[in-house]
């Protein structure tokens, strides 16, 4: 017995010690440093889109530069990838100066602050280089992005991957159940089509057919709700008539309701109405602003121009109110979302799994609150579903749901704040600087951008063509690509000093303080807590988000 106890103790001790000798996560476990080659260390955020794409870049780069010398006596480059979950947010900016990595691919960083604090090496030459096939990066980055990337007229980073969040819908389910509005609202079926053959309504964009000049297909959103009443009717129709649960979101992260909010707000506010929430300048154009509520509780809307001095009006954008109204409507009806959405133990991957299996197992769910990366995240679950269910589970078809529009067109806003840059720590090592710049430029070659999207299904915030690779993407990934490249994309970031100073307050991210409100002296952190748990209304929540002009001038406004 004692012998067994001793053996057990030794085994436990060995397990504990194993961690000490375990290889750190890196791309070349067991490989020795080759002193004849230049050593380049590359840090990357290990979450998000992962880093297998970077390992592939590493192999191609090492091969392509095998005979290139970046420093005397050495030929070729040995790239070491360092994936860490800590390479994001504020944590990175605090440790950059002591980090060994020369190049970084990260997300959720305060770029402007990092650049101003001297953490990043200037890379204007890479951005403006005309040697690049397909033209300079500067000519392939959208104007608003260039404005955001410029710090004192210089570039210090490049846009990395894009992450669009919103409401995913099951296209196959919509087709099977014909969840579309009819062109004839009085067709005897509550305005919904009887079958797939019936003519559908014009949808949110109010148009149908293909534009002969641009080739844009306006019929893609035909049959989808064009008004909020129609949208609410669709939820009711799903639940009451079709026995479909409209929504699922992870109960562990009730902040995911922000994705529903964002989806509705983007469609109403349009590109300008979303961008202005970071720039505080509508460039002389008028936007729908809620100035109060009438006796019926309906919003009073006025058209106003937003300037940096009146930037507080961004908190009164009409699209934001309508978005809150939809969130309240969903939360008020417990049958509109799954039980797991209320359970704190349900993670985002649990929600993805439940959503994937729901229509396959006869308990369909229409909408998932997620991001453009969700299929990559749920890749194993899709594979498993095919093994469990068979051919029926193959080639699933999902897309972002088109919400009613407010007349300004719709948009998709990137919420990853993902960048790539070079660590300023290496600035005195000219050879390493040259190597790092060459590697970064290599990652942004047209072919490498395409490879990235092929590998991850996600786009990078630079203009490029996918060619045949487009056909290798899943239906959902194609839909994301089409939507973002067709309707345009933006990001809720800017170099505006008011924004950069109070980024945590104004960043429209699930994990920012954007949704923090105080209603009747009680503070709330999420829409779920205020509306579902404490019965507050969308109007109350919306008004609690407002900032008065005095507070704006005294606390937030920076010139």
């Amino acid at each position, binding site marked *: 017995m004692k012998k067994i106890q001793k053996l057990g103790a030794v085994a436990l001790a060995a397990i504990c010690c194993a961690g000490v000798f375990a290889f750190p996560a890196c791309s070349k476990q067991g490989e020795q440093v080759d002193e004849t080659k230049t050593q380049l260390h590359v840090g990357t955020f290990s979450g998000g889109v992962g880093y297998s794409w970077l390992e592939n870049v590493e192999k191609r780069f090492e091969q392509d530069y095998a005979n290139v010398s970046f420093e005397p006596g050495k030929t070729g480059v040995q790239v070491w990838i360092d994936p860490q979950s800590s390479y994001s*947010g*504020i944590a990175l*900016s605090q440790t950059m100066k002591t980090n060994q990595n020369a190049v970084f691919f990260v997300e959720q960083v*305060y770029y402007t*602050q990092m650049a*101003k*604090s*001297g953490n990043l090496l200037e890379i204007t030459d890479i951005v403006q280089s005309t040697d690049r096939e397909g033209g300079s990066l500067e000519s392939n980055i959208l104007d608003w992005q260039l404005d955001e990337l410029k710090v004192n007229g210089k570039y210090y980073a490049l846009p990395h991957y894009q992450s669009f969040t919103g409401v995913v819908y099951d296209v196959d389910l919509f087709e099977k159940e014909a969840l579309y509005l009819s062109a004839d609202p009085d067709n005897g079926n509550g305005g919904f089509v009887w079958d797939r053959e019936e003519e559908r309504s014009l949808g949110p964009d109010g148009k149908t057919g293909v534009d002969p000049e641009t080739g844009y297909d306006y019929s893609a959103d035909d049959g989808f709700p064009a008004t909020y009443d129609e949208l609410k009717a669709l939820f009711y129709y799903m639940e009451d008539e079709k026995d479909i649960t409209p929504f699922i979101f992870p*109960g562990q*992260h*009730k*902040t995911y309701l922000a994705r529903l909010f964002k989806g509705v707000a983007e469609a109403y506010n349009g590109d300008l109405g979303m961008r202005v929430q970071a720039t505080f300048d509508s460039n002389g154009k008028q936007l729908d602003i809620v100035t109060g509520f009438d006796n019926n509780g309906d919003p009073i809307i006025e058209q106003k121009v937003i300037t940096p001095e009146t930037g507080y009006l961004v908190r009164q954008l009409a699209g934001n109110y309508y978005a809150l109204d939809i969130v309240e409507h969903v939360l008020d009806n417990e049958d509109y979302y799954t*039980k797991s959405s*209320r*359970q*704190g*133990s*349900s993670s985002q991957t649990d929600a993805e799994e439940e959503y994937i299996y729901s229509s396959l197992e006869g308990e369909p769910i229409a909408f998932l609150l997620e991001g453009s990366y969700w299929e990559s995240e749920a890749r194993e679950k899709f594979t498993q579903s095919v093994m469990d269910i068979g051919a029926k589970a193959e080639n699933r078809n999902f897309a972002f749901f088109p919400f009613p529009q407010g007349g300004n067109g719709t948009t998709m806003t990137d919420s990853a704040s993902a960048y790539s840059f070079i660590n300023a720590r290496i600035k005195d090592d000219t050879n390493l600087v040259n190597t790092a710049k060459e590697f970064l430029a290599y990652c942004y070659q047209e072919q490498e951008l395409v490879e990235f999207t092929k590998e991850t299904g996600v786009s990078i915030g630079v203009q490029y063509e996918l060619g045949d690779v487009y056909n290798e993407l899943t239906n959902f990934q194609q839909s994301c690509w089409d939507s973002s490249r067709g309707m345009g994309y933006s990001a809720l970031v800017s170099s505006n*000093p008011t924004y*950069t*100073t*109070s*980024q*945590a307050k104004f960043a429209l991210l699930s*994990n*920012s303080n954007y949704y923090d409100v*105080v209603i009747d*002296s*009680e*503070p*709330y*952190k*999420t829409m779920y*807590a205020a509306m579902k*748990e*404490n019965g507050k209304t969308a109007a109350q929540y919306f008004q609690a988000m407002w900032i008065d002009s005095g507070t704006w001038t005294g606390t937030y406004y*920076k010139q």
Partner: protein
Amino acid sequence: MDATIKRGGGYAKQRRNKLLFYISLVGLPSLQFVIFYIIVNFNSIALAFQSYDSDNAVYFFYGFENIKQVFVNFSTQSFLPAAVKNSLICYSFTLLVGIPLAIIFSYYIYKKSFFSGGFKVFLFMPQIVSALVFALIFRFFTDNAIPQFVEMFTGEEADGLLSLPETRFGTVLFYTLWAGFGTQVLMYSGTMSGISDSVIEAGQLDGINSFQELIYIVVPMIFPTITTFIVVGFSGIFINQMNLYAFFGTKAEYADYTLGYYMYSAATEAGPAELPYLSAFGLVMTLFAAPLTLGLRWALNKLGEKF
């Protein structure tokens, strides 16, 4: 003569070696203390009197404005007084329920009563398993298993204990108590095992029962350990985040906030502009907690002298 010199040289060498041994023993911890306590805290304290210029990315002297802002916020941000209340509830619960229970369980284990080994495993489990993993298991139990039990027995749908606002704080409080139980039991039972058998036997000869043995012999003998837990717990009132981060990340509801959680979660998400205010907040908490802690220690030491 030679022998004397040799002795003198040997003595000096012995002293030198002892000094070297002493330096090598305390040198590294001292260096760690200087770097990770004095320098780090000095930086934090200095930050409390600074503000951040985002245009030039530099900190500048800001006087007592951050300190003032802390007091202003206590009167304008309603979650802060609520967080103070929650912090005090947490400490009171640990003090009035946790410590007595831990002493009783420790005594049970010390007396090697029935299934005491099993209790040991259950109570030490939270210390062995990773805090996040254990929180995950606990969450799964409260939000999946319990609603299923309720449904099974009542036929009605039920939400999880951590999902309902009415039960959330109480559930986390219970978890905090349970998760901290192991350390206390380990310390108390360890101290109890050091009590001389002759003292216990003398009591038994005098005819005391188990309860009297616990109250009149064991508790006074382990009182310094109890004092340590009370004082350490008190000093941590304002930094105890009550495992809220393990359950909710940075998105716990304001109603459940403790001051420790507020500082922890705010610092996690803070940019350089927010750090000075948080430093000032920590400093103000220290100004309140430090004298009270020292006062409590003095009072408990006085009480201990009576035993």
